[in-house]
Every structure is written in structure tokens, then in C-alpha cells.
């Protein structure tokens, strides 16, 4: 069989295709996004789609599984909070065709708002949990996930972490298995979770878990590696196994658990009995160690609950040799910080700049997307941002709290177009229905940008390139019954119009909705359309007032010795024209 270097995400997609998966659905979220992007490539063999949120994706996949097809849904860890409802009850119902949920956790918060460890979900929701440790296992475990799901009538959770998702390693590929769609039997005693059914299904589910727990003893997904040193046995799973291997080396022995719910207690006890000392290595919550200790096994389990694990952290705890000796780079200056910023030409810059000019008159509530970067100086656009969709709901509560204490600032909430469809719309309905005094802004850049340009309900093409109806945001907004005078659509780069819209939002009673419309500057069509168009600062006109520097555009720089601004990065300047509006002496012009 051919070999390829694949990321964990690519290998999951390949494994799902090989396993005969017919339906895949997800909402984008780093580090999980590439799973759907890659599986979508198999256009002739399966249907892959983005959905508006993770709950819908899980429900859609569940529907396909009950209908007899093997299905997949993938999400970032926090996405599983959104999808928890269908997952918990779907677990009671079980499947017909196999179903796999992929959770991509992000220890270290590389691109996330928390470090939640979704292994705890597996036990709580009663899902078979598999934890691959590299790309080959991503492929192999994915295929196994469907066999287990169908054999034990359970949903499977493939639990990944950023280092597994985004690491590439050599993978041996296989062929696609011919899997027949199973006949749909419409068994309402199984799939309608009325109490009478749920109580009975729960008993069956616990029986299935017990069966799999026992069968784990012989599963090839769990692996014992016996080495020369018989004093120490290390128990680990997923990427933590790789770090353990680096730190402890080839002499100690390992129990590498591939099935981490249910944990096969007999396997763990047998392994533990062979060694005088048992060490449990795990990144995140003490999930394995708590359960292993509950078996009455004394285990040395260091706390790595916070941050990403690596071999150096393990070596430090156990006083192990190895690792690196740093080159002496003393006496060198510090590198300047390089925080992520809104790109040159980003439409959000126009909104946040206009908003920042009204400092002291608003309180900003953000959401998850590129526009979260509006929190940074010089915009300081928000005080609060916690999760998807909350940008439209938090303002309802916050505005009440502020009004009560005589704080007259208007609460502004902002969500992106994709986030609006994810869960923002529900909150808008509440805001209107509850007569909230807020200004809610949809920052519509025509794409799900932060995760790398995924289609959403608002785009005319879907994930697999099919033409689909684009759902108009403005009509959804007006469907709430909001007066047309309270809906303002504006180009955020146009500072006069943008400023007027914000002023209306500051003074109107009730709900004002602003939709800022301008496509993400990095969209392929946008790049093509502008060609080499960019801005230039005329040296003979620039008076060095730095007004243009206030917009914090990464393409603009200021030469302190010459006392003048200049376009430092003409390749990235999009000639959006925001800086031009800042210049009072007309020194900035568009060129090709």
C-alpha cells in the first residue's frame, strides 16, 4: 500500500473514507477544521457539509447513522459543549450505521478560549473513546471506530489534541471498504427517548459498556510494550504516550491505551501487577489516573492539568536526563512582540476604528472570530468575549445591569456572519422580543474567515463546491419584526456612513442592528480583482502628523527620521482606502 505524509486531520478524513463513511458534517473550528475540508474532496463517494453549528452537525450525522449510513461529525473541543445535547441522548438511542464524533482539544490554548479536556465527556455521555497518538493511528482508529460503534451500538468519540491534528507523519493508506447502507427500520422504541424508552436504553447502554470494557483486554487498540526494566511501568494514551516515550526512553515498559472509555480494568491490573512502580502520564485532567487509582492501584501521576505537555516537563518531574542544552544566546536584545492583528484591508478595521472614536459612550461585547482582535490597542473595542453567539446575548443582560446603576453607555454586541448563523440569530430574537436597549452588529465579511475561509449559510457555494441558496442575513433580521429604520447596512470602510450608523446605535431606543458589509480582503476573488492595486504616500505632501497610523494597519509604517508615513508592504496593502480618509492633506493615493 502507498505511503504518504499526512496530518492527523488528513488521516482521519482518509480513514473515514476508507471506512465507507457516507455523510460528514461539521462547523469549522481550529484545530479540527481540516477534517471536513479533506473528507469533502471525496465528492463522488460521500456528502460533506458545513452546518450552522456543532449541534446541527451532530444531529445531521446522527440522522444519517440512524438511517443506516456511516457518518462523521468533527468539532473543536468547545464545539462539543454546543453539541452535547444531541450527543448525550443520542448515546442512549444508539446507532444503525456507525457514527463517530471527533473532538479536537487544544491544550495550551493555541487557538482557543479554554483548555477543556473532552475525555471527561466520553464517560459522562457514555461514548466509546479512542485516542490516537499519531497520523497512522488517526487512520486506523477511525476505521476501528465504525466497527466498534456498530458492534456495541454506541457512538464513538475520537479524541484528538492539537499536536495530533496538526502534526504530520508517515501513513500507510488502505482501500475504501464497500459498506452497504443498512435498511432503516424506524424503531421508535430505540430512537424516541421517551422516559419509558430511555430507562430501558440506559440499561442496555450500560450492558454494552461492560461488554466493551471486558473486550478491551484483547483489543489491538490497547498495546503493552514490555522492555528490559521491570521496575517501572508507564500508562499513557494519545500524544501523552509520545511525550512519555521521549522522556522515559526504551528501557521502561508501557501500557498504551487506545480505548480510554471504557478503560479495561483487567488489562490495567495485569500490567500494574508486573511492576513495583506505576506511572501515569497524561496531559490535561487527571482522567486516567483517577480511574486507575480507583482500581486500588498506587500510581505516580504528576499534575499536568494546565498547558501543553512535552518531554521536558516529564523529565523535570522525574529528574530524568536527556533533552537539550541551550546555546548561549546571552546578551542579545529581546524580540519585539508580534501579536496577531487585523490584516491590511480588513473590513473590521473600519468598524473598530469608527467605534473607538466614540470611546466612553459604549461598552463592547465581542464574539469568536477575527474580529475578537478588535480588543487590541488602539481599538480597545470590547470588554467581554466568551463563546460563539454570546456577542448578541450578553448585551441583553449587561445592558440591564448597567442601566440599574445609572451607567448610560450603550452596550454594543458584535458577531460575524458565520457566528450570526451559528447562534447569534437566536439571541437577536430574544433581544427584540425582550425590548433590550442594545446595538447589535453583524460584521459580515462574506465568509467564515478566522478558521481559513469556510463557506457558511450566507455563501452561494457549499463545502463540496455545489451551488446552494445563500440565506440573506437582512431578511432574517427583519423577520424578527424589527422596524426597517432600525436596520442599517453599511460599508465599514466608509467612515462617514459607518460613524453615522454607530451614532444611531448609540442613541436609538430599543434594538438597532447594523450589518457591516465588505468581503474579507484575503478572499481569492478579492485578491484577483484588485491585482496590484495599493496605496502610496506622496513624500512631498505628507506632513508627518501620523493621523493615518491611528488605524493600526500592518501595511503602513512611519519613518521617524524622515518624519513621514509610507506604505511598507505594498504587496499586502489592498488600497481599501481607510488610511486615505484619515489623511487631511490628501497625501495618500491609490496606484496600480
Amino acid at each position, binding site marked *: 500500500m502507498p505511503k504518504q505524509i499526512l496530518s492527523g486531520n488528513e488521516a482521519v478524513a482518509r480513514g473515514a473514507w476508507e471506512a465507507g463513511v457516507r455523510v460528514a458534517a461539521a462547523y469549522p473550528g481550529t484545530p479540527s477544521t481540516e477534517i471536513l475540508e479533506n473528507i469533502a474532496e471525496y465528492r463522488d463517494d460521500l456528502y460533506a457539509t458545513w452546518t450552522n453549528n456543532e449541534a446541527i452537525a451532530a444531529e445531521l450525522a446522527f440522522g444519517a447513522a440512524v438511517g443506516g449510513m456511516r457518518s462523521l461529525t468533527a468539532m473543536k473541543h468547545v464545539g462539543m459543549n454546543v453539541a452535547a445535547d444531541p450527543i448525550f441522548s443520542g448515546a442512549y438511542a444508539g446507532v444503525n450505521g456507525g457514527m463517530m464524533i471527533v473532538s479536537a482539544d487544544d491544550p495550551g490554548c493555541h487557538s482557543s478560549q479554554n483548555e477543556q479536556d473532552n475525555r471527561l465527556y466520553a464517560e459522562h455521555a457514555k461514548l466509546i473513546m479512542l485516542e490516537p497518538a499519531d497520523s497512522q493511528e488517526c487512520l486506523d482508529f477511525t476505521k476501528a471506530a465504525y466497527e466498534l460503534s456498530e458492534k456495541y451500538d454506541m457512538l464513538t468519540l475520537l479524541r484528538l489534541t492539537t499536536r495530533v491534528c496538526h502534526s504530520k507523519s508517515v501513513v500507510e493508506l488502505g482501500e475504501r471498504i464497500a459498506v452497504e447502507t443498512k435498511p432503516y427500520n424506524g424503531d421508535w422504541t430505540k430512537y424516541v427517548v421517551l422516559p419509558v424508552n430511555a430507562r430501558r436504553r440506559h440499561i442496555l447502554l450500560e450492558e454494552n459498556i461492560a461488554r466493551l470494557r471486558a473486550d478491551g483486554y484483547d483489543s489491538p487498540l490497547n498495546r503493552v510494550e514490555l522492555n528490559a526494566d521491570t521496575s517501572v511501568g508507564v500508562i499513557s494514551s494519545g500524544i501523552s504516550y509520545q511525550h512519555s516515550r521521549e522522556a522515559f526512553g526504551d528501557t521502561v515498559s508501557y501500557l498504551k491505551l487506545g480505548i480510554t472509555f471504557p478503560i479495561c480494568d483487567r488489562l490495567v491490573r495485569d500490567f500494574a501487577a508486573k511492576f513495583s512502580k506505576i506511572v501515569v502520564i497524561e496531559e490535561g485532567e487527571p482522567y486516567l489516573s483517577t480511574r486507575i487509582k480507583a482500581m486500588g492501584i498506587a500510581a505516580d501521576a504528576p499534575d499536568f492539568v494546565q498547558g501543553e505537555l512535552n518531554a521536558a516537563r516529564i523529565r523535570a518531574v522525574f529528574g530524568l536526563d536527556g533533552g537539550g542544552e541551550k*546555546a548561549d544566546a546571552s546578551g542579545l536584545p529581546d524580540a519585539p512582540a508580534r501579536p496577531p492583528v487585523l490584516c491590511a484591508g480588513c473590513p473590521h478595521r473600519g468598524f473598530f476604528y469608527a467605534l473607538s472614536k466614540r470611546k466612553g459612550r459604549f461598552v463592547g461585547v465581542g464574539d469568536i472570530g477575527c474580529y475578537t482582535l478588535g480588543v487590541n490597542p488602539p481599538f480597545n473595542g470590547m470588554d467581554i468575549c466568551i463563546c460563539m453567539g454570546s456577542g448578541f446575548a450578553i448585551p441583553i443582560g449587561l445592558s440591564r445591569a448597567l442601566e440599574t446603576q445609572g451607567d448610560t453607555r450603550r452596550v454594543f454586541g458584535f458577531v460575524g456572519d458565520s457566528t450570526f448563523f451559528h447562534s447569534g440569530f437566536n439571541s437577536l430574537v430574544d433581544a427584540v422580543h425582550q425590548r433590550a436597549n442594545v446595538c447589535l452588529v453583524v460584521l459580515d465579511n462574506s465568509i467564515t474567515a478566522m478558521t481559513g475561509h469556510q463557506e457558511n449559510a450566507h455563501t452561494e457555494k457549499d463545502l463540496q463546491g455545489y451551488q446552494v441558496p445563500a440565506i440573506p442575513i437582512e431578511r432574517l433580521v427583519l423577520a424578527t419584526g424589527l422596524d426597517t429604520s432600525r436596520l442599517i447596512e453599511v460599508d465599514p470602510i466608509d467612515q462617514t456612513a459607518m460613524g453615522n450608523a454607530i451614532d444611531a446605535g448609540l442613541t436609538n431606543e430599543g434594538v438597532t442592528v447594523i450589518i457591516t458589509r465588505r468581503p474579507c480582503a484575503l478572499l481569492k476573488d478579492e485578491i484577483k480583482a484588485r491585482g496590484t492595486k495599493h496605496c502610496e504616500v506622496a513624500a512631498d505632501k505628507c506632513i508627518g502628523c501620523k493621523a493615518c497610523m491611528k488605524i493600526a494597519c500592518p501595511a503602513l509604517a512611519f519613518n521617524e527620521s524622515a518624519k513621514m508615513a509610507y506604505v511598507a508592504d505594498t504587496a499586502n496593502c489592498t488600497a481599501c482606502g481607510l488610511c486615505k480618509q484619515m489623511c487631511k492633506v490628501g497625501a495618500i493615493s491609490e496606484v496600480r
Partner: protein
Amino acid sequence: MGKTTNLLFTGVGGQGTILTTKLLSSALAEVGNDVKMSEIHGMAQRGGTVNTQLKFGDKVYAPNIGEGEADYVVAFEKAEALRALPFLKKGGTLIMDEREIYSMPVLLGQQSYPATWNAEVVAGDYKIIVVPASKIAAELGSARNANVVLLGSIAKLLGVKISIPDKFGEAARKAYEAGEGAVS
């Protein structure tokens, strides 16, 4: 346990660090190495630092490397070279372009860009090789090929040859060869 050779590539979003690491990974796997490559992206695409890590040898376990563990640091940008130096091991080699990309705190005048630090380095327990990749690539027709120049340099040092895909164009092939030449 067999030893691995560890590399860290660092640059700014859009410079092509990930693509470079990918091409090198494939070439190293083709000559029989076990290879793992690790990248972190997401927020990094918005003008932040992008790091990719590459390990190869008989058998590779963890895909990422710790401080003091890199045999080579390949820096596509000068300040990023400075930031990545803690990863370089004693006796290791830093290969860097002299390109300077100012971050927002520098553009806003809140922090200064350490422009001449590499001239001040008295390379003691590590080696520093400056490859003016951006300049070379620009002279050969496209500044965007700076990553290919650096790819040529590191591939040469590792003793592998990468065939540049035709779709990259003639300028890229020349850039690769110039990169090889820069370290020989």
C-alpha cells in the same frame, strides 16, 4: 533510543514556512527516515509568528521539540530568529534571512526593532549562517521565493535534494539552487 535530528522553522504568517517544512519532510521520508512535522496555526495567520518543527531519524515519537533541542533553526525573519534562539541547542546552527517585518507594536512605536543584533553576535557555542534569501529571490524574479532559497540551504546542509515542482516555476528552481549555493 535512536537520536533524531530536530529542526525549527520560524517566520511570520504568509512567508511559506509551512510549505517549506512540508517539502523537506517529504524528501527526508523518501530517503528512508521516519519523519514528524508539527505546525501550529490559527491566530498565527493574522500576522503572528508561525513555527513549524521537523524531526527525523530511525524512529520519531513526539512531534514537537523543546528548548535547547533544535539542531537547526531556520528563520525567515530576523526578529523571529531572535525569538526562536532558546530552541537552538549548544553547537547547533542558525540559518537566517535578513528580512525585517515590523510587528504592530513596532509600527505603533511602542517597541523597537533590534535591527543590528546579528552583527553583534560573537558566535560562540552555535553557528550562524546568514542567507539573504529575500534579496536573492527578488533578484531571481520573485521575492516570494525567499522560502525556497532557505529550503535549498537547509536541504544542502542535511544532504538531501528536493525536486521543486514544475508549477512553482523557473524562478523557484533557480531560487532553490541559489539557496544550495549560499551554504556550500
